[in-house]
């Protein structure tokens, strides 16, 4: 309802706002890399951040916002908008499939995501696929694909095994995957992944699945992340050595997974980058913040929690050049919070995506 009018309004808004530069002034600006600038101006021009500084810019409209400005959150797995369109079940592997075509910009579900401050989403292939295709990075607010063929998704968990379709065994799975990589022509997604040009996201859940995934990644020189791995704390050394990051999936219930809390603390101690997802959680779009908050109440510091949802997530998805931090040249995906962005008690005042105001608490009057 609200989103559709936004989609309609977006171009107009853009037409008027794009050339018209403006600045946001806030008591705290969370850059995303852990650094916080106090009483700062964030100058936005043509949808990107022009500058972050303490002195007022000249000749631009200054919007005083009461609270904290932080980069829009990045969810590294969200299939809400794709329904079941992200798994080509007739085949186990369709490595060249492009997930950006599974993206439905008009899905009503995106609205909730944006209103919780999530401005960037990675749309991966379904868990039942082995080499299911190339994940897309999309902007749920703008309803646009930000980056196609961003990440190669690999399903290496039991979920990727068939019961009456090949392969039914891990041996078969890895044999199949080996063939896929061997057969990959120059410049094809798997070849690019092997060359380390495109990051991979390997879904592995149990410790033994993760262990195997790490060995495979090492053998094929893959870069990127493991998604799943709730018991990563027991594999910190192996993960550290592999140079891969970890993406924790949201849980059904309870919202905060004890394993993930333990693992996140361990990884942060060992300086292994990690991120969260908003997908499939009982808390929906709030899932990733809820999980991060659970980690914080167990001792994870706020900076690390914010990084996991912004800068680190962007790096894992290979979009750190444009997203995940508030810095000159980065996309103006900004969220204005009533308090610290990682604190669950903080409210979203307004959300900007690509410089456009896409959500405002005042306009958001669903049920009066």
């Amino acid at each position, binding site marked *: 309802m609200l989103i559709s009018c936004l989609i309609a309004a977006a171009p107009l808004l853009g037409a008027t706002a794009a050339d018209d530069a403006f600045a946001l002034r806030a008591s705290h600006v969370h850059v995303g890399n852990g650094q916080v600038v106090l009483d700062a101006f964030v100058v936005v021009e043509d949808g990107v951040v022009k500058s972050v500084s303490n002195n007022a810019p000249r000749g631009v409209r200054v919007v005083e916002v009461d609270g904290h400005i932080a980069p829009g959150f990045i969810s590294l797995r969200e299939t809400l908008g794709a329904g079941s369109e992200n798994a080509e079940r007739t085949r186990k592997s369709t490595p060249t499939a492009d997930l950006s075509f599974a993206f439905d910009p008009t899905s*009503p*579900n995106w609205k*909730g995501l944006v209103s919780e401050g999530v401005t960037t989403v990675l749309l991966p292939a379904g868990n039942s696929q082995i080499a299911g295709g190339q994940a897309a990075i999309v902007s749920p607010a703008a309803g646009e694909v930000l980056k196609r063929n961003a990440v190669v998704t690999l399903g290496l968990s039991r979920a990727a095994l068939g019961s009456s379709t090949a392969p039914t065994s891990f041996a078969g799975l890895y044999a199949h995957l080996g063939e896929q990589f061997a057969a990959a022509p120059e410049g094809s997604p798997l070849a690019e992944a092997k060359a380390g040009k495109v990051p991979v996201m390997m879904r592995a859940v149990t410790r033994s699945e993760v262990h195997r995934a790490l060995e495979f990644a090492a053998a094929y020189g893959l870069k990127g992340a493991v998604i799943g791995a709730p018991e990563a704390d027991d594999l910190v050394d192996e993960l550290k050595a592999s140079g891969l990051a970890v993406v924790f999936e949201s849980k059904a*219930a*309870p*919202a*905060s997974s*004890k394993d993930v809390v333990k693992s996140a603390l361990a990884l942060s101690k060992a300086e292994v980058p990690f991120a969260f997802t908003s997908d499939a959680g*009982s*808390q*929906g*779009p*709030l899932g990733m913040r*809820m999980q*991060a*908050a*659970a980690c*914080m*109440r*167990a*001792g994870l*510091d*706020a900076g690390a929690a914010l990084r996991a949802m912004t800068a680190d997530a962007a790096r894992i998805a290979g979009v750190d050049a444009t997203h995940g931090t508030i810095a000159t040249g980065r996309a103006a995906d900004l969220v204005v919070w009533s308090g*610290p962005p*990682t*604190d*669950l*008690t*903080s*409210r979203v005042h307004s959300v900007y995506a690509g410089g456009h105001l896409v959500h405002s608490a005042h306009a958001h009057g*669903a*049920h009066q």
Partner: protein
Amino acid sequence: MRSYSTRPDRRSPLRRLRNLGIALTAGAALTAASLAAQDDPAPEPAPEPAPEAVPAAPSLLFLRANKVIVSPGKSLDNMGLLVRDGRIVAMGTDLAAPEGVETIEGEVICAAFIDPWSVAGVDASSARTDRVDTASRATDALDPYGQDEVLDDLLESGVLMLRVEIGSAAAVSGVGAVIRADGAVPVLADAAISARLYAPGLDPVSRVGQVDRLASALGGAKKYADDVATYESNLKTWEEEIAKKETELAEDFKKAKKSRDKKVKEAKEEGEELKEKKYKEDKRPRPPKFDAKKASLARAVGGEVPMVIHVEQALELRELLRVTRPFTRMRLVLAGGRSALLFADELAERGIPVIVTPAPSSPGGDVGEMDPGFALAGELSARGVEVLIGSGATSASASRDLPLLAAAAVGHGLDEDAAFHAITAGPARVFDLQSKVGSVRRGLHADLLVLSGDPLSSSTRVLASISGGKVVHQAGN
């Protein structure tokens, strides 16, 4: 040393029946917490070391913090607390730690969190079953062993008390309890009768049918209670009559004997059989046939215990509010209540609290577009409805998230104090424990948290959890 309480045994018409074994005092042999309180009505001794046979609570404990939240919205600065035998015995700024008494210091001290809607500590199959009735008891399903992992997590997160229920698949699931997370021991064995009017996927007719069935059950229970009352008064009058008769007969006995002897003589002379005078009297009145289920539900109808009803959709809620109007003494509590906003005014006016489980709105879900999602708690509270926040009894470990859920509610419009009330003083009041827990006052039980910051802030850590005066968790060990 340890014991727990049931409700004051008011002189209700059901008293005698309850004493026939359905009285929850019979459950007093239960595992029990250190609520050895003078003000507890007839606390029954139940020797019971916690599963891992922990040493008894230290008799003395001293707490100090820069800020003590005595009740929602009311806090005192730089206070010391002295705890003896599980109770707060002294509070004051100038209060110093006595010699050699264990001392715990922190930024903030507040009442422990209470989850008013949970299944933690309850044996999983009993929690899920539909094979329960109004006479079933959650205290029969407490499992300190199978659930120890979950319970330890709760101590860490500061959720030290829970209102648990069983039979989440049943229409009416019997008597719930308030327990301590520490060892899953009951604090109040008869916290509430719980029922649910929430069966997704039913057609409207059968949905209304559910409500009618509940209504007639309540009606039946009420009639039963009335019958028992009538019986008791009839019995009283009968006993008086008979007593009177006895004395009369005793007085007239000599006369009666004389006339009888005379008759005997006459009869002998006539050579006839002696005819005794016919004696008649009213029969003792019969009690109504004992019915444990009705007797149990009658306690809710009579307002002795609250009645918690899980209801989400507007249709059921509207009907429920309608059919419960006649039961004026019943203390209704709603759980879930995703569509409660539609009836906010009536709820506020009838003083019906709502246990909210903050959750995202699901377009096309049970309550469709009406679903306010996380904003529910905030908006209900704004409309003057008392809001409690519970984990929703979906899974045992869900209770661990209680502080997060309350924080999320704040993040979506609920006033911070109201949110704190919703997981401390609120549940304590609704389930009649305000004289024991839910706030920080002299004389109350020491169920407290020592925190590194404000209770609901995500960057706050629970430094120590004190349950009934016993330190059950301390950060770092």
